[in-house]
């Protein structure tokens, strides 16, 4: 398989980079400067039969069109918002992602963000490190156990979050494309209704054209000054400028955010707010999970190029 060209769109962890390099002809597209990308593609497109993408960069229509021999897009993510799925279907290009292996870590981080936000863990750590404890006690924070949790999107990750929140005695409600009658959680037909009826709103759905800015000003207002927004899904699911102004104005109680509209840029107005917890898209960021994701990418590519069934096909 060493002559099969694989276009890598992001700086991969050493294990993944080494294995791709070992088994295929690896093109590190992320390392090519912007003004040289076009020339690079023209030179190498003939041999490129696979693209490896992630949450930041995948395969849009333009890239797909410039790779005439593209057969498979293997995503190092479960989200597919950076891949033009319709175009791939149209051209018979296979698409794979990394579901299940990252579900637990992302759900764990969602709860970690809730606790950090409501119990002011990061702020209290700053309080100790700055020496302020010697001058007086920290303030009262807000209890998490028993608070109502509303989840947008009850897929694998949404369900895993619900299960964890239940262990904290939280009543669970949700909104998704359609109700799930097998589940005992309360369904709301709109996100605004969900936000009006919960204390903590967790965004856990896929980013599509329909869900862009699904958390808008109306939803943020409904969540209100005691409400907390948690986003471990995709930045563009939330109207970020509305969110920032609501937090700055105190119209929203707090937020725990792992994803942003224009990563790695994070609105600086948020930096000074102690009711906001910010993390740099680390939802699946553990050694164990990234290894498992890498193995899925490698496994899918090897399967495809040896005409075996794909491990985790989407298209």
């Amino acid at each position, binding site marked *: 398989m060493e002559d099969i060209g694989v276009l890598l769109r992001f700086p991969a962890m050493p294990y993944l980079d080494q294995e791709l390099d070992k088994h295929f002809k690896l093109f590190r597209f992320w390392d090519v400067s912007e003004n040289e990308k076009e020339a690079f593609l023209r030179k190498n497109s003939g041999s490129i039969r696979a693209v490896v993408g992630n949450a930041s960069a995948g395969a849009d229509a333009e890239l797909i069109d410039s790779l005439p021999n593209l057969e498979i897009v293997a995503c190092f993510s479960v989200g597919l918002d950076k891949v033009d799925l319709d175009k791939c279907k149209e051209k018979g290009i296979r698409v794979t992602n990394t579901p299940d292996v990252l579900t*637990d870590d992302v759900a*764990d981080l969602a709860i970690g963000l809730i606790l950090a936000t409501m119990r002011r863990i990061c702020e209290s750590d700053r309080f100790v490190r700055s020496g302020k404890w010697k001058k007086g006690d920290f303030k009262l924070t807000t209890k998490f156990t028993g608070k109502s949790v509303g989840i947008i999107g009850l897929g694998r990750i949404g369900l895993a979050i619900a299960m964890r929140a239940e262990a904290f005695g939280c009543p669970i409600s949700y909104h998704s494309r359609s109700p799930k009658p097998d589940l005992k959680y309360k369904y709301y037909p709109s996100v605004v209704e969900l936000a009006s009826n919960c204390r903590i709103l967790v965004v856990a759905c896929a980013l599509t054209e329909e869900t862009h800015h699904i958390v808008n000003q109306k939803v943020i207002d409904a969540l209100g000054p005691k409400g907390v927004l948690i986003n471990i899904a995709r930045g563009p699911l939330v109207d970020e400028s509305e969110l920032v102004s609501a937090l700055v104005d105190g119209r929203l109680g707090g937020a725990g955010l792992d994803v942003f509209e224009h990563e790695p840029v994070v609105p600086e107005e948020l930096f000074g707010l102690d009711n906001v917890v*910010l993390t740099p898209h680390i939802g699946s*960021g553990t050694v164990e999970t990234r290894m498992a994701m890498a193995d899925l990418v490698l496994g899918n590519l090897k399967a495809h190029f040896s005409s075996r069934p794909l491990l985790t096909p989407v298209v």
Partner: protein
Amino acid sequence: MENQNPVPTVIPKVLVLRPPPVFPFFEPRYSDKFQFLKAWESPIPTEEFLETHAASVAALLTCGFNRITPDILRRLPSLRLIVTTSAGLDHIDLPECRRRGIAVADAGSVFSEDVADAAVGLLLDVLRRVSAAGRYVRAGLWPLNGDYPLGTKLGGKRVGIIGLGNIGLEVAKRLEAFGCFISYTSRTKKASVSFPFYQSAIELAAYCDILVICCMLTDQTRHMVNKEVLKALGKEGVVINIARGGVIDEKELVRCLVEGEIAGAGLDVFEREPEVPKELFTLDNVVLSPHCAVLTEEAVGDLCELLAANLEAFFSNKPLISQVAT
């Protein structure tokens, strides 16, 4: 002759040596129900104050940092009730209370959930580097230096709980939902619980990846988490302490963290609060909080209600709400 003046209700006196952290919330809510004798506000030394003003006092409101010694009890001949705002009892000489016929009421399980929440929050922060990654973002390093280094997965980890009381059980319940495997050590094995039991902290540490300290501080548990236990826990090990600083040999813990002998720690309590070893301030695998695991609006509200309920029960000769065995 008819009595025109109504008999004034005697507001019962409650002695307070030094104000518990919850006192600023408690006093305003209940100042019409109880008359607080505030020893710390008097210019005269405490012993003299007690002898002069507290001879007839029947109830004492205290907290973890007031040591209730035989010496103090000797100066309170009318004392029949001690209400402590803590769940721990290491500051009260219980045998002396029993000898003197003094009932003791504690905070029961009123803030067990909040403390368990804090323990889980600290653990998630340590393993997933929430605070450290937050510092990275706020310093503007994400666009400059790229992705933050990887953390450690919580699921599948073996968690050893030291002390399986109310708080320990709440921690266990939560962590099971994250796919952790729970085992514990305690003074005695709990028949009602199916988690594997280990006789000692060192055996528990040898088996587990994570230790969560949820026990009371007693002579037996002081420095229980020592050099040998930390060594048994190992280089991948994480310690979470929401109990009392004294359960850990703090100097040894700091050394292990600085030298990479264990992987991380989440600490809400310290041996000499509010002093915290400065060596910890530069470590990204450590999360520190200022003994605030119980300090939520809800826990404080519930605690105030419980304190008042115990005091009211006592003064109306009714059974206490959260009496402890002495």
